[in-house]
């Protein structure tokens, strides 16, 4: 195998590829990237078995062939080479040589046969999703994904295609974020798939511009194509809990409040919350929210009052301040609407004005208030 390429061009691809490479693995080959040259095209692949990245760049001076190379080592050297063209070649013993203006370097590579095959997707359905929308979906839901490996279904975001529309949901049991997009996706079949958070974070960092990406779904995989790079992931093969049954419909106490003021008060007051419970108390009465916290362990406490629009009966409710801040940061309108029912039932938060063609809902479970706050 042999090819020549501008350092910049290959470095960018290798950095992306390296993002899925596991630091250590029971399968040592996974710490490598696979380089494969065919007809003046270099394909760079990396995988952790669950998630795979495969990208393609044009190369010159090429001879077909492939080799696997330690991803970190290759990134380390390519990252510090001078600008300009480099030539990389490998022999039949997988011995790799890199030549460029600064000198030449050798790496013992590995047999490409040991590298897991890049998934081949058959019988899939492909739709186009706008990059901006994809970005928004991930940003608005992924924060609520659970890290608990004992509930694998909750470690990803649910993409529910129903009647051609898409609803995305994430929850860790304490909070739930749901973004429904009221626009035709062009998908023919209803589908419920759970996409791992790791994959979505990767996509989020690779997304740019407002182009459309190809979103391909098969029985076991999802593939998103961005430019010449394909991102594959296995779908989490679990049943997602019935999220719609837990979203309350009878929250009769509606509060309208400025997001910025609410968030900055929450940030200040939460500094005095107990470090274990992160408990913060909202006392909501006529057009006023009192935000307070107290930590008997440290002896500290904080309290602020902010204006709101509320005329219902007084209510006191406790939340984990970290969760509350996370949620307030997701609301990008000036005002938000919070609806509550009782101190120990789920609260809902919406932007005061929903963006065009979407309905964004966040649910937050309260903390049972203890005496201290």
């Amino acid at each position, binding site marked *: 195998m042999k090819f020549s390429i501008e350092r910049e061009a290959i470095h960018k691809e290798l950095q992306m590829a390296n993002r899925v490479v596991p630091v250590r693995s029971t399968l040592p080959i996974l710490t490598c990237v696979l380089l494969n040259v065919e007809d003046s095209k270099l394909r760079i692949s990396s995988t952790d078995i669950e998630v795979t990245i495969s990208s393609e760049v044009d190369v010159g001076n090429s001879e077909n062939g492939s080799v696997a190379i330690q991803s970190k080592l290759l990134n380390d050297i390519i990252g510090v080479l001078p600008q300009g063209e480099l030539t990389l070649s490998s022999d039949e013993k997988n011995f790799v040589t890199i030549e460029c203006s600064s000198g030449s370097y050798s790496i013992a590579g590995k047999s490409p046969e040991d590298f897991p095959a890049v998934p081949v997707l058959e019988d899939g359905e492909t739709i186009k999703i706008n990059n901006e929308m994809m970005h928004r979906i991930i940003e608005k839901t992924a924060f609520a994904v659970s890290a608990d490996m*004992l509930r694998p279904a909750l470690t990803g975001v649910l993409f529910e295609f129903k009647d051609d529309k898409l609803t995305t949901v994430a929850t860790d*049991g*304490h909070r739930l974020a749901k973004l429904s997009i009221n626009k035709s996706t062009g998908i023919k079949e209803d589908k419920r798939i759970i996409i791992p958070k790791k994959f979505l974070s990767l996509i989020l960092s690779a997304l740019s511009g407002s182009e459309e990406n190809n979103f391909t779904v098969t029985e076991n995989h999802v593939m998103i194509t961005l430019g010449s790079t394909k991102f594959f992931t296995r779908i989490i093969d679990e049943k997602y809990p019935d999220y719609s049954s837990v979203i309350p419909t009878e929250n009769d106490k509606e509060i309208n409040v400025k997001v910025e003021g609410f968030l900055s008060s929450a940030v200040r007051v939460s500094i005095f919350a107990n470090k274990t419970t992160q408990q913060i108390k909202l006392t909501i009465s006529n057009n006023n929210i009192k935000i307070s916290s107290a930590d008997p362990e440290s002896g500290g406490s904080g309290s602020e009052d902010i204006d709101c629009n509320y005329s219902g009966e007084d209510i006191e409710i406790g939340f984990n301040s970290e969760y509350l801040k996370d949620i307030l940061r997701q609301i990008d309108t000036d005002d938000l609407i919070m609806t509550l029912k009782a101190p120990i039932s*789920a609260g809902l938060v919406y932007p005061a004005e929903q963006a065009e063609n979407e309905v964004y809902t966040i649910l937050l*479970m309260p*903390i049972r208030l203890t005496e201290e706050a």
Partner: protein
Amino acid sequence: MRRTIIAHLDLDEFYVAVERIKDPSLKNKPVVVGGSQTGRGVVSSASYEARKYGIHSAMPMYQAMKLCPHLIRVGGKFREYSKYSSSVFNIVQEYSEFVERTSIDEGYIDLTDSVIKLKRTAIQLAEEIKRRIDKDVGLSVSFGIGSNKMMAKIASKHAKPNGILEILSNKEESFLKPMNVGIIPGVGPKTKERLNNLGITSIGELRGLSEKELTSRFGIHGEGLYKRARGIASSKLNSKRERKSISNERTFNVNIQTPAGLIPTITRISMRICEQMKEKEILARSVSLKLRYENFETITRTKTLSKASRNVGVVKSLVEQMIHYNFIPGRSIRLVGVRVSNFEPENIQTELNFMR
């Protein structure tokens, strides 16, 4: 300086007594609680009538049945026992705010302040508590009173059954002197044997050894032995005694040959343990499995959770995993047990329904 007064409360043949409240026909008969009719498992509690046959708790059931063929065995309704125990300690707490419950049927009460506040002697208080427990709960109890926990406990052992014994502080040394060294808390069969080998059987003889001699032979325990032989021990009560673990196990009537055969029992045990955690408002981070093979070889394995839980499904699935890894084909299982430990206070964060 005020004299410290500690009382040790010990419910008489507790499990049997509760069973007799539920079924009075069991009175005056040799009764044991625990094990199974087929002669497996062990005796948890034996009535005084049964004890006459040499039956004692922790004795294998088949042995007990051999000693007394007309022995009546009743099932362990442990949740029921726990209720009775709580009623007893609720009464006790009216008399002192310093109460240490050491087990389901035993505990210490610090009466130092109570005698002044309630203007009665320790004996009078013990009599009154005893009467209340008899009248309100229907259980018989024995009290030992002394200047520290050790003396109180030794006294209650002598007061049993249905009695009260106070060891006055100036009589402690002479009271202890003729006693067998085995009565000292912390002197188990091993230490006792080592002492016997030195020709020491009574506490009086133990006092003959200097502190230096004892430490050179028994290490740090030597110092404790020296003190306890002289009636010196802690009187500090651990009022909020925290439980370190909750466990439950079961001996099978017929050995189980496959992992699948263990599942119904695992499910039942896990449910019971999780219920107990719920009552105590705690979550556990560690789950352990105990397996005893047909040849009595016993193993325990522990797994730790990333997040504390008391979800039956979580506990069960961890136990199942451990069974899977540790089941040896061709072997069979005589006993299975589950223990949860590493407790955290209940999360006050509420959860969506599907998490439960």
